[in-house]
């Protein structure tokens, strides 16, 4: 049996991939389209993005299934195809994966709120996430990564659903810096979030999105004090802005982004990657900084 991604994390810094949505846009995905639909409509394009990340030196890529829960897919009228789209997502990444690499089944938020803020029950969330997780496992995911969570209750529903598979489950929350420290949109503190996720059986925990790589260093240090689990850090390339030509550019350049990666690792991140605004070029530059990475091996 191949070694687990977590074993690698014990030996050296593990490198994940970067942004996927922006890469799909670059290949022509249009406004309002359902990204997960591309797993069956444009499978070769999705696979080419995974390949580019593996070539850049990523140890694992995230599948094109961030919005693949049936609750999220319902906003595109595709809820009945959740199993098919998630299976395809995992299969495409699997087909692109060279030996010695891993496939992380991506699970993002539903975009809806639990009661009392919203209409959904925890059981409904958990069941939707369980279905998505099992389809990702069937398609060949090695681990599941629950990402960009702004509500700890939703993250725990996803974690419980994902744990029904036998795969290890990683969870990243998205925290903002407020005057009292780092909190999610729903007001979950770093300490509380990591403690609950660990208790519920997460194999690795961390943060993604919202913050740039410089701000993420402080957050990683705060997280390090709260858990003994491997820590994940996937920062944004700063804030987006629209340039003169109408194209979206992010405020952090590749060089500026990568400059803080050694700091992230020193602060305690054992699994690093990118988020919005990062591309295979960012991951390649990060791979060059990581001793023993697939690029430096």
């Amino acid at each position, binding site marked *: 049996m191949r070694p687990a991604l977590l074993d690698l994390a014990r030996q050296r810094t593990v490198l994940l991939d970067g942004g996927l949505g*922006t890469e799909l*846009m670059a290949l022509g995905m249009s*406004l*309002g389209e359902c990204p997960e639909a591309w797993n069956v409509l444009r499978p070769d394009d999705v696979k080419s993005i995974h390949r580019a990340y593996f070539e850049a030196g990523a140890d694992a890529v995230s599948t094109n299934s961030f919005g693949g829960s049936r609750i999220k897919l319902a*906003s595109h009228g595709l809820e009945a195809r959740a199993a098919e789209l998630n299976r395809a997502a995992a299969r495409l990444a699997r087909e692109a994966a060279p030996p010695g690499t891993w496939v992380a089944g991506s699970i993002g938020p539903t*975009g809806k*709120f639990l009661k*009392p*803020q919203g209409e959904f029950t925890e059981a409904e969330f958990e069941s939707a996430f369980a279905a998505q997780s099992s389809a990702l496992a069937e398609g060949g995911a090695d681990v599941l990564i629950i990402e960009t969570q702004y509500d700890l209750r939703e993250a725990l529903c996803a974690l419980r659903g994902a744990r029904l598979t036998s795969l290890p489950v990683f969870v990243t929350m998205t925290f903002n810096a*407020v*005057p*009292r*420290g780092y*909190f*999610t*949109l*729903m*007001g979950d503190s770093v300490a509380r979030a990591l403690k609950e996720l660990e208790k519920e059986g997460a194999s690795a925990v961390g943060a993604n999105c919202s913050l740039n790589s410089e701000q993420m260093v402080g957050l990683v240090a705060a997280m390090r004090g709260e858990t003994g689990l491997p820590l994940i850090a996937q920062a944004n390339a700063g*804030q*987006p*802005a*629209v340039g003169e030509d*109408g194209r*979206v550019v992010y405020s952090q350049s590749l060089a500026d982004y990568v400059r803080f990666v050694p700091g992230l690792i020193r602060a305690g991140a054992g699994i690093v990657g990118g988020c*919005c605004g990062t591309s295979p070029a960012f991951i390649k530059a990060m791979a060059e900084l990581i001793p023993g990475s697939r690029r430096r091996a």
Partner: protein
Amino acid sequence: MNKDGLYADMKQAIVEGDGAKAGRLAGEAVRAGLALPEVVEKGYVPGIQKVGELWEAGEYFLPELIASAEAMKAAMAALEPGLRQSGVRAATCGKVVIGTIEGDIHDIGKNLVAAMLQAGGFEVHDLGADVKLERFIDKAEAVGADFICVSALLTTTMVNQKRLVALLRERNLRDKYTVLVGGAPASRKWAEEAGADGYAENAVAAVKLAKDLASRRA
């Protein structure tokens, strides 16, 4: 009846996000024959202001904001018949048409801004998500809006905020409305670039900005 005590309780009900209490106290004020515009101004508005301060201090988060906005709605619903009957309208800060831009289905932030604007005394017309540019303008024309508030979560849909401003110009309506943009990728710089009148980082800041701009419009 001790008016000051009642107003303090009303404020507290909003700060605690206790809709049942906020509504019950509003009913008491109606039965006691109090001047309802004053009840709004001295009882409930200070509550929602306090909520804004707690948010800015990092004490309150989205669940508290939603609960407080709902409590405000419950109070206003209880006061509304009395306000209408007496022919006295609670002072409205202005009319707002709000929605998430064409191509974008994300509405969490937009809903919160709509709720807080309403709690803050604006008449809010919420068009929902994935709203066509023309619909923003048609609705604003139909209700005689002062503000058009446009949300976008995605960098890819954000460009439509700029197109909305262009469309207003095309139809010679640009100066008629104050256009505010918001959403994760938006910024003050983007608002300038898009030709909008303002940007706010969150729902609390949006209410402040809208009130500030409304007083300048008046």
